[in-house]
């Protein structure tokens, strides 16, 4: 839930940029309402218990070995994420609809549906921080608005 907490803290900055935010979670609508609601993010969470959108985006799956025997890169990323307020919740990882091996991702989509920026996680900790996401939004909207 650290990701949601961090994104909630930056909501006003996304709003200033006139960018909507949608957080896809691996659970039912009821689970999303309950859990995301505890973090004041129920309206931003989009339930995807079947992980359909993850599959459509082509998000990869990691392996148990890759999580247990983390590479130096993953260790470094975990350290960065912890410093930025991200971490992995073991308890939430084992909820009924959660696939602990499925990797995270993010996409900036312009009005009408074209992808302006895309990130597919290469390992479990590979989701940019909220601050980094804001930077990508600023950069790409500027390019889009001037092209």
């Amino acid at each position: 839930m650290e990701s949601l907490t961090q994104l909630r803290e930056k909501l006003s900055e996304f709003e200033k940029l006139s960018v909507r935010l949608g957080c896809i979670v691996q659970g039912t609508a009821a689970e999303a309402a309950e859990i995301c609601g505890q973090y004041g993010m129920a309206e931003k969470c989009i339930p995807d218990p079947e992980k359909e959108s993850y599959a459509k985006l082509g998000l990869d799956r990691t392996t148990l070995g890759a999580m247990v025997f983390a590479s130096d890169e993953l260790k470094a990323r975990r350290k960065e994420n912890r410093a930025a307020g991200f971490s992995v919740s073991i308890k939430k990882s084992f909820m009924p609809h959660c696939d602990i091996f499925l990797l995270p991702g993010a996409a900036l989509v312009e009005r009408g549906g074209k992808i302006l920026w895309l990130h597919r996680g290469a390992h479990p900790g590979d989701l940019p921080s909220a601050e980094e996401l804001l930077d990508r939004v600023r950069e790409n909207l500027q390019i889009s608005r001037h092209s």
Partner: protein
Amino acid sequence: MPAVQRREKGDENMCVAATSKGYPEVGDAAPDFVYQDGGGNERRLSELWDDGPTLIVWLRHFG
């Protein structure tokens, strides 16, 4: 080519190329899907970007 490429700092548009063949990339249409909201209504993800730019984050489990 490795199955998973490193994401270097400053190269934020890079994706996991070897595993993303056939999947949407920058410039393509974002994937849409139908979901059920808290009120039991069917909604589309694309409703978000119908009115303006949208950042979609796919969280691991519940983040």
